């Protein structure tokens, strides 16, 4: 093992490059390759480049930076497809980290991540809001009409106040307590999709679950470390572990596919790799990450596992049913293996007619910031996906990721009157008996 190898990434991560058989199965899985049809866009190609970088005969050039950031969504499709067990996501996110160290990060992005990682800045200052407005709206952007591939007018507005400000730290169910959980609500629910948070709390308490919403929680760190800024991400991880790595609760519930996959799979890997590389990470932190990992459940996963705790929903004999399709977010399907559970929930709702759309599991093309920075490539992937969604001819598209939600709703054909909701919102509205009203008002509003 040469010196260079040891310095760049951990040996554990390096070993992946030698297990790529170059069989090419990842080319079929990769949404970016399928559009660009050039080998550098393929996971196999990037593994090849990673090998040469690790072996020290290829520089981390600006071209490499472009390949790592603009030709990869880090959606994890290749990881699932790879028969050799190569964890491309660990390899590529590690290289993004080293690339960002070498070439720096765009100033706006850096500022955002600093802000995101320090909740005191987020909750007491308007920095976050300012940034979001800068990216998502405001005169500067509106004059450009679109941010990458994201039309500004279709982006949901910020919550009037953060979601967690509207709830006490512990929300008790009305009757007996069947379980106690911690709720990790993430940034999207807190600042953009407060209704998702309300639905989560409502459904869980309805099921007899005590919901604890730890004060002071902030970003899961995933968008930060996927952009290569591990130093800032460590702050997020440390804070999250302090608040959520507890063995006195039954589960840690997450409503965001991305946060869930970070808590579940990325923390322990990143901490271990940094420790292997001699960074200041304790074994105790890694153990905490493993404890947290064992507790994390996506909200749809948790609800589906305890369907018998739900109060019976009124049956709908003879009445019209609402057609609902489901889109699998990459970070839920590929990142956490959660596919059946949201469908189980939707199919259990008497007022819902579930329709399985074609290619439910392909990427929406959003990829968080990807759609903003690399709009052209993103648009190719998104347009294909939107076609499948409309073909399903549903009234509601349910999904479990705020990122997919924003991307998809921004590109839907307005004339089709389709609404995008979190799976748990569909359930909550069905329990409350407001799903019909929601659909009717949605149609008239558009």
């Amino acid at each position, binding site marked *: 093992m040469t010196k260079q190898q040891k310095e760049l990434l951990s040996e554990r991560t390096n070993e992946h490059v030698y*297990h790529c058989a170059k069989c090419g*199965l990842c080319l079929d899985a990769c949404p970016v390759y399928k559009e660009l049809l*050039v*080998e550098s866009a393929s996971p196999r190609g990037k593994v*090849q*480049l990673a090998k040469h970088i690790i072996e020290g005969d290829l520089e981390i050039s600006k071209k490499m930076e472009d390949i790592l950031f603009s030709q990869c969504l880090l959606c994890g499709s290749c990881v699932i497809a790879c*028969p050799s*067990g190569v964890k491309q996501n660990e390899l590529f996110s590690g290289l993004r980290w080293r690339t960002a160290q070498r070439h720096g990060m765009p100033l706006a992005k850096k500022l955002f991540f600093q802000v995101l990682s320090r909740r005191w800045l987020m909750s007491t200052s308007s920095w976050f809001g300012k940034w979001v407005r800068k990216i998502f709206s405001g005169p500067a952007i509106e004059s450009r009409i679109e941010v990458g591939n994201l039309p500004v007018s279709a982006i949901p507005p910020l919550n009037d106040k953060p979601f967690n400000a509207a709830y006490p730290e512990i929300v008790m169910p009305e009757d007996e307590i069947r379980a106690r959980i911690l709720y990790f609500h993430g940034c999207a629910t807190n600042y953009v999709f407060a209704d998702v948070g309300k639905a989560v709390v409502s459904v869980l308490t309805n099921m007899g679950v005590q919901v604890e919403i730890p004060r002071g929680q902030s970003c899961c760190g995933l968008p930060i470390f996927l952009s290569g800024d591990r130093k800032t991400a460590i702050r997020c991880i440390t804070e999250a572990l302090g608040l959520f790595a507890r063995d006195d609760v039954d589960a840690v519930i997450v409503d965001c596919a991305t946060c869930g996959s970070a808590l579940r799979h990325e923390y322990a890997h990143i901490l271990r790799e940094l420790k292997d590389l001699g960074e200041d990470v304790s074994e105790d932190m890694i153990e905490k990450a493993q404890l947290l990992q064992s507790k994390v459940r996506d909200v749809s996963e948790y609800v589906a596992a305890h369907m018998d705790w739900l109060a019976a929903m009124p049956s709908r004999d003879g009445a019209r049913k609402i057609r609902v399709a489901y889109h699998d977010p990459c970070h839920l399907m590929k990142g956490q293996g959660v596919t059946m559970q949201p469908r189980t929930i939707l199919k259990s709702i008497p007022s819902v007619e579930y329709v399985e759309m074609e290619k439910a599991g392909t990427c929406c093309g959003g990829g968080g910031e990807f759609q903003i920075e690399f709009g052209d490539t993103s648009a190719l992937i998104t347009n294909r996906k939107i076609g499948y969604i409309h073909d399903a001819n549903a009234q509601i598209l349910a999904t479990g990721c705020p990122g997919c939600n924003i991307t998809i709703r921004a590109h839907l054909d307005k004339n089709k009157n389709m609404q995008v909701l979190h799976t748990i919102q569909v359930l909550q509205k069905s329990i409350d008996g407001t799903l019909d009203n929601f659909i009717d008002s949605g149609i008239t509003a558009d």
Partner: protein
Amino acid sequence: MVEEKIAKELRAIAGGDGYLDSREDLLNYSYDSSVDEAMPDAVVLPNSTEQISKIMKIADREKIPVIARGAGTNLSGGSIAVKGGIVIALTRMNAIKEFSKENRYAIVEAGLVNLDFQNYAMKQGLFFPPDPSSWAVATIGGNIAENAGGPRGVKYGVTRDWILGLKAVLADGTVIQTGGVTFKNVTGVDLTSLFCGSEGLLGIVTEATLKLLPLPPFKQSLQVFYPKIDDASKTVARIIGSGIVPVALELMDRVVINVVEDAKKIGLPKDVAAMLLVMVDGIESECRNQVRLIEQICKEEGASRVAIAENETQEEALWLGRRSALGCMSQLRPNCLLEDVTVPVSNLPVMIKGIYEIATKYNLTIGVMAHAGDGNTHPMIVTDKRDKEEWERAEKAIGDIFKLAVDLGGTLSGEHGVGISKKPFMNLIYGEAEFRVLKDLKKVLDPNGILNPGKIM
């Protein structure tokens, strides 16, 4: 490096994003699915036959090697630029130009992915029989250049059997059209077959006319487990000998079963010595009859368990493991040397026994998988190229395997082609006279020797 003057010409033909020469891009076209790598000097991603013709004129004038490449899933080093030069990657030429349901043919561009075409054809009730295990990625052009086979080969043969005609660009840029759209066509010498399996040495196929079949109304698969591998290979010889023509008849040994199960967790038993996968298709009553006969033969030959798929989902589940087996082998050790020696099916039991003896002799782990129904055997040696001593033993073992196959009346390659990996052993098959014919042919079609130099001969 390609001289700037020439690079400029190529860029003018293929457009800005169709000409690549950064070190990163060249590294990304330096490999296929075999273990070797070699750097090209430039990569061109053309959009049309005309562009390829123009590129060939320049390359021929400048005597620069040209290597045609599809998705780079070939297993012989066939699409690697061992002498440098220009890689022409056909991935962006992926249109279906014509689809005739009534006449059962389609004209497609060479870069079209096999499975993408299958999905299209299936919606019209038709299919293209060649089904290499890489079909989700591999291109039709690549299938033709390697004359690829696949599990369905037992009943339906290989790629060459399903090509009615080709459009190809010769070394000097001349565009030729071979064959036509009719199933019967003996007008002139069969130039179509000449290009099938020519591994990019004679020209670059840019379009192909594919012969299609109606989808069979019914198919059914069996999964059979054996405590002794010898019994499994004897079963294969008996099924084929009995006159039944299965669509596919695949064998996987204990090593492969274990690797696949570890990777995919699909419920394969890890304590068996071998597994057979058998598929039949056709009229339902006839299929069920054949399945019954096959089941009986399997049991008589010592099968410990026979499972029969009863619906599409179960069918899919049975075949999933087989398709990902090669990739799975790389979980065991970094490199997997996959060969495709082929013997007359009655000699399959001896061939497999011989492979195990060779594994013992060289102290190597060799997994065996086979398109057993046509004697096409895939010994897979797992190793680590970084371990030089073991690597040498692996190479010696391959030499022994080739010799054994030839001694048993077989051949070096059933479906992967020669490329560079089997080149040193070509003299086991070709004599002086055969080499001379090939060289003469090459001289006529490619006088400057620019098409995929360093391969086969």
